[in-house]
């Protein structure tokens, strides 16, 4: 009997230690620890050249401002069955929308779902204005999102992961650290382990979402954060998730949490 016990002890020990190591490794996934401390956060602007920085800094030259202006017009344009515009309920966006997008993505307690700014705009469009939702990445939706986010320019990103948002944050975090695609890379592979290093002729950024929607020179137009995330997925040869998918939305929340404190820069300019 004791001989059996002795023989079982070694594998039992091995199993126990493996279990403890596994817990230790898995622990970061459950903790709220930051790989990038808040005082080491750098906006993507710092990883772009002088031309891009000058473009973003000049409100006239910044091509993204064309969409912000269009969004301003759309804000006062009636739509839907009741002929209501955004302004009908929210009046002057400069006041009512100030600080709003800095809190996004946000958990909507009424509908029990996570919403990014585009999702919130479409929710208002369909539920309150009784109009058709904007298609993802459509010019009007981009313009309104750019206009709304622009009202938070300069304010620190500050999205909540409490309450109903928590499970979305958790999923977003797992997504961020999971390797994927033919290149078998996770978001962290580039943006946490290799930011500041050169990838071909470019310097890898920390991958923050604080400037979106952004005018990307590569796109030659304004685009949303989800478009950029899909581009990254393409970059590592992973399956591109559809616009509005839960995974992309959860990832947006994780990214916002990760970028806490960075100033909103919308409309950004990036290469």
């Amino acid at each position, binding site marked *: 009997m004791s001989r059996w016990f002795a023989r079982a002890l070694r594998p039992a020990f091995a199993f126990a230690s493996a279990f403890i190591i596994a817990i230790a490794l898995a622990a970061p996934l459950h903790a709220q620890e930051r790989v990038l401390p808040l005082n080491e956060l750098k906006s993507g602007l710092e990883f772009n050249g002088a031309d891009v920085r000058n473009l973003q800094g000049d409100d*006239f030259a910044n*091509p993204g*401002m*064309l*969409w912000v*202006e*269009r969004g301003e017009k759309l804000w006062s344009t009636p739509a839907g069955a009741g002929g209501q515009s955004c302004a009908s309920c929210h009046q002057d966006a400069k006041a009512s929308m100030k600080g709003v997008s800095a809190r996004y993505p946000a958990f909507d307690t009424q509908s029990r779902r996570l919403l990014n700014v585009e999702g919130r705009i479409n929710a208002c469009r369909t539920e309150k204005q009784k109009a058709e939702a904007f298609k993802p990445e459509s010019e009007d939706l981009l313009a309104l999102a750019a206009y709304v986010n622009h009202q938070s320019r300069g304010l620190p990103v500050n999205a909540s992961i409490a309450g109903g948002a928590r499970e979305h944050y958790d999923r977003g975090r797992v997504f961020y650290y999971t390797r994927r695609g033919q290149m078998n890379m996770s978001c962290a592979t580039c943006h946490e382990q290799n930011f500041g290093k050169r990838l071909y002729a470019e310097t890898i950024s920390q991958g923050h979402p604080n400037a979106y929607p952004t*005018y990307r020179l590569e796109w*030659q*137009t304004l685009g949303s954060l989800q478009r950029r995330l899909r581009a990254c997925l393409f970059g590592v040869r992973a399956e591109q998730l559809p616009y509005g998918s839960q995974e992309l939305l959860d990832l947006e929340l994780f990214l916002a949490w990760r970028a806490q404190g960075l100033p909103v820069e919308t409309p950004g300019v990036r290469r």
Partner: protein
Amino acid sequence: MADARIQVPQSVKRGENFEVKIAIRHGMETGYRVDDVGKQIPRNVIRELVCKYNGAEAMRVDMSSGFAANPLLQFWLVARDSGEITFEWVDDAGTRFAERASLTVSG
């Protein structure tokens, strides 16, 4: 909807040089890109941009696909009378656009 922004100074003195800026929302499609089913997207760029100051031609730009998308243009004119700065531009598709801004000249 002509998506363009024009900037002229708030006010300017007669005889002074003043800067005019225009930012146009136009894809400036080069004709060398293909869509996601491999079909070539036809070329459609702004061909010509004319700026008039109170009806008289003040600046003309022959443009091409060599301009960036959503082009920006900044140049200088000489202030004479108060009035209007107008821009007219036409692209390969034949669409004509126009925008105007008021100019106040003192002295």
